[in-house]
């Protein structure tokens, strides 16, 4: 029929329905308690943290724990309010209404997760305003419908402060409506636990990877805009587990994604050889 992006999301949502196990998430501070409290008091949650620190995994784990379907929307500049709320599509000679992702989540009382919310345009973000305060309702102007959110519905947005630019920042009015949970890369011992659990490599190798990531996070050099995230550490660990030699796994999993400067890349590899024997 059509190839609107949210159709992919709908498929994902069915997968979530089928998901029975709770995904692994290791709590670092009290973020799970805060999330549960927010769900109980029917408030929206703003997740802050660098890329690859486990924001999405955290939401997945919480959705499974609370037994709610999870609908994820990756926000981008072209995401319109219609993508969230719904639109009329042509079918034969007729028009047919199609719910947007957010509308769908409200109707089924699920958890709607707007990933990288600042990427969306301001007019899209204000669509959630009425939903996130005491009214908890979604107004679909094209249908003239006022949709009241059920108590189980929850909105979660994520946001990476490191990426913000002057043009892209959350409006204070949007920000104020949320409860904020700040996530960061876990401390070394917890990260070690996570890496071992996720990838299944032995402790010595995992320790080397975590120490290396810790050192790279301390670096502040031009040409290195990002640091090694927990995600890249696990990627490298997975590659080791799959039989790749240590150094090649680290290069492919951790160093390669960091930067494109060949000089820095080579130097980082020297750093790697100090940490990994």
């Amino acid at each position, binding site marked *: 029929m059509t190839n609107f992006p949210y159709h992919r999301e709908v498929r994902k949502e069915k997968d979530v329905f089928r998901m029975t196990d709770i995904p692994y998430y290791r709590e670092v501070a009290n973020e799970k308690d805060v999330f549960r409290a927010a769900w109980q008091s029917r408030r929206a949650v703003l997740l802050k943290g660098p890329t690859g620190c486990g924001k999405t995994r955290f939401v997945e784990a919480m959705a499974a724990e609370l037994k709610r379907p999870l609908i994820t929307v990756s926000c981008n500049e072209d995401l319109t309010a219609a993508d969230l709320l719904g639109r009329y599509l042509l079918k034969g000679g007729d028009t047919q209404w199609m719910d947007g992702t957010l509308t769908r989540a409200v109707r089924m009382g699920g958890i709607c997760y707007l990933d990288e919310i600042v990427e969306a345009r301001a007019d899209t973000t204000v669509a959630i305003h009425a939903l996130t305060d005491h009214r908890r309702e979604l107004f679909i102007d094209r249908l003239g419908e006022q949709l009241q959110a059920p108590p189980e519905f929850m909105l979660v947005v994520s946001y990476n402060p490191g990426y913000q630019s002057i043009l892209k920042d959350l409006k204070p009015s949007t920000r104020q409506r949320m409860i904020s949970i700040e996530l960061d890369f876990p401390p070394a011992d917890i990260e070690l636990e996570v890496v071992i659990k996720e990838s299944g490599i032995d402790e*010595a190798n995992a320790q080397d990877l975590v*120490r290396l990531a810790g050192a790279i996070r301390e670096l*502040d050099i*031009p040409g290195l805009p990002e640091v090694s995230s927990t995600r890249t550490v696990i990627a490298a660990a997975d590659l080791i587990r799959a039989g790749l030699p240590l150094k090649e796994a680290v290069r492919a999993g951790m160093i390669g994604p960091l930067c494109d400067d060949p*000089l820095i890349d080579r*130097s980082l590899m020297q*750093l790697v050889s*100090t*940490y990994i*024997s």
Partner: protein
Amino acid sequence: MTAAEFTQHFYSLIAGAVAGRSVPVHWHDDKKYNAYTDNSCIYVPAFEFSRMHAFDVIAQALLIRVGALKREHVRKLLGKRNIHNRYLFAEIVRATRLNANILPRAFCENAAIRQFPFTTNSPEQSYTLAAGKEHFPAFPDFLGTLRCLLVLNNSLPEQAPAPELKLQKKVTAVLAEDEEEGESEESIILKLLSKKQIFAAKGRVADFIAKLLGITGGGKPQKKPGSGGGVELPMGNVSMVKRKGKLIGRLSDLSVEVVVTKDSNEAGSHIYPEWDCSKQKYRTDWVVVDEVDPLREKAESGAVMSEILQPPSMELKRKLAGVGLSFEKHRNQSEGEDYIIDRVVNYFVDCRSGTTPNEGVYTRNMKTRRDLAAMLLLDISGSTAEMEKPGGFSVHHKQMQLAYHLMTALHGFGDQVSLYAFHSWGRTMVRLVRMKAFKDRFIDSRIRNRFAMLEPVGFTRIGGALRHAARKLQEEETGLPYQILITITDGFSYDHGYEGEYGEEDTKKAIEEIRSKGIGCLCITIGSDQQEEKLKNIFGKASTLAARDYDDFIHNIRPALLRAVAQTRSG
């Protein structure tokens, strides 16, 4: 790329990771020492090239990270050479245990570190342990060497008038001797101090020693403005001591000899030539410039900083607006040079259908595009620390305020701005302190905090700093047509072997080179009137703004900046 250059870059990277701030690494060629640090850079022995020096670098970077080499601690160690290694050992083990999660496993599990039998929790405890009688395991070479005088020398706010240099040299020599041979428990310097007459008789020398050892607090303003002084204490000045026979070796110990390689890279050092006016030719590969982060043991007080870091006034902003603009095409204008066909068609359609037409049918070129890249270079040598009256603002404070205002104002207009501070200790230690790089998109608390960490110490080898700044400006902002380099200085160009005519001629040459690259230059001084003529001679009359005070600066900045823009290739 040869192995040497490559390895150098990599060591800077690992030093930066372990120390948590930018730490350049150099090779040194002095067989007496293992790896050592002056708390900003790390020097690794070049003569043992075959050995891997990663552990040496990690050990020194750890000392920087945990603040083991703060002046208060190093002062206590001065002259007690027999406990230097013990202190290093205890501190490095302490730092390793504290930061185990970012260190390579091999380093933490090194036998010497792992089997160290004692535990300390602070530099004080480490000192007590080191000074005690406990038996230590054998000292491994990779823990390096402690050079107390180097650490203290590089953080000393120096100022002393010329006539007393002779005596100061003697004191310096004694100190040097102390560092090298001070095997005895009771050091020579302590004996010197016990002879009270030094303090009684030679006021300024005594001040100097006292300052070095931290006996009195802070520098006293001794120099009268306009006295033509401005000579800073040349510690470790080799050239002038050669005549004195025996002292040569010891004094030259204080200046750091590094092994210079031709290559330069973004995390390592940068090598520049210098103009030798007596021979009328360049000294190639002469000056080593490093980029470091600001470091001060005790940050400038919040009250002073909040007074300095005020947002720029409306008046300054008005003066700076409209400098360095280029033409930009604007669409949908009601008057202009060319039609937009679509719009014209719409206009007539609207007319015919009876609705009010939109009159914006022209494109017009207007001078609105911000096309200025400005590199600000702030002099933070020891001479700027002078205050006119106690408790007031020093030249350093005034210059800092001026630099902050210029930076913030230009940044606010959307110009590309970066700010680096500079000082030096001889030709191998020219340091550019990063305050705001071009790539820093916001002037936030992180950048404001850096100002509080600036300490006015050292000398002014301005040529190397200018050459490096110009290169950065050109490499990082290639796209913009108006590139200007603004130097904010107190005008005392002075360093080891950079005195008088030599320094002036080299600076002149550097400015010449920079202009020939199409970069506009401007030199601003504030509140230090003495060197105006000299600066005008060096930078050219049109490119010098010697402001009496802040109001004078505001009054004159616009024409001065416009003249600088006019010097650029596009201007």
